């Protein structure tokens, strides 16, 4: 388990974003930015994922999907809110169908600002998330270690 931060898997969910941030997340996977060189793989299965990337705000349609996905992920896990929409609701904050940022429904560990975020910023955010993941892992091990030994 100690090597989890060497090869974290991410799951990406598109909230009610404008796509601007989504395509930048996708751009991270492609040759110019290529986050696979950090061992990061994009997966569609929440059970496989360590990092939850969310773009776009939360609306009344996807709130349950986001909660479900978060709950299905196994500990330790971190949540990265990508883009201003995911951070606070952004320009759509006052829309009738938007509840606000991701932190309205699940705890967020890293906020990546920008509209649209730049791929470099996303990578930075993920790298920060790795630090938090490591802390959470150590914490979890301490708790479980005490019980096991």
């Amino acid at each position, binding site marked *: 388990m100690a090597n989890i931060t060497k090869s974290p898997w991410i799951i990406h969910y598109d909230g009610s974003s404008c796509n601007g941030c989504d395509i930048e997340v996708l751009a991270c996977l492609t040759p110019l930015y290529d986050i696979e060189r950090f061992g990061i793989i994009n997966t569609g299965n929440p059970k496989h994922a360590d990092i939850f990337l969310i773009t776009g705000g939360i*609306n*009344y*349609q996807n709130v349950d999907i986001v909660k479900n996905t978060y709950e299905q992920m196994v500990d330790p896990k971190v949540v990265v809110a990508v883009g201003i929409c995911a951070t606070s609701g952004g320009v759509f904050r006052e829309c*009738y*169908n938007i*509840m606000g940022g991701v932190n309205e429904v699940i705890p967020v560990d890293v906020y990546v600002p920008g509209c649209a975020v730049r791929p470099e910023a996303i990578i930075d955010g993920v790298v920060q998330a790795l630090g938090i993941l490591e802390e959470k892992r150590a914490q979890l091990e301490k708790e479980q270690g005490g019980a096991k030994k």
Partner: protein
Amino acid sequence: MKDQNTTMRGIAVSDLVKETGAFKAKGCRLVQIGCTGIGDAYEINYTFDKDYVFETVRITVHDGDVIPSIAEHYWASFIYENEIHDLYGLTVEGMSIDFGGHLFHTAIENPFKNPPEVTKVEKETPAPGPEEGDA
């Protein structure tokens, strides 16, 4: 830069299906149906196009009116008519596919509906008495 050729004229609701049929006979395609709230009524614009001449006909309706669907001439109208139903709470009769209000899921029902007429009630202003004085 060239100007785009768009025209607009108002018609009666009862003429809608007939007018649409005329557009169809001319070989126009349906470009869009769009609704606008104007205080106590709604304008619904039907846009048709042939050779980049965009012609719009407009009907004016009120809350509770039943709008005839133009599906008999344009099957594809269902997508716009359902949108109008979901966002404005207007009833469209005879749609080719009726989603029953499940096309758009919104937090508040019919978000674009005109606000109900508010009859202003004269607020009772408490007579400023010395006992509530905020000196």
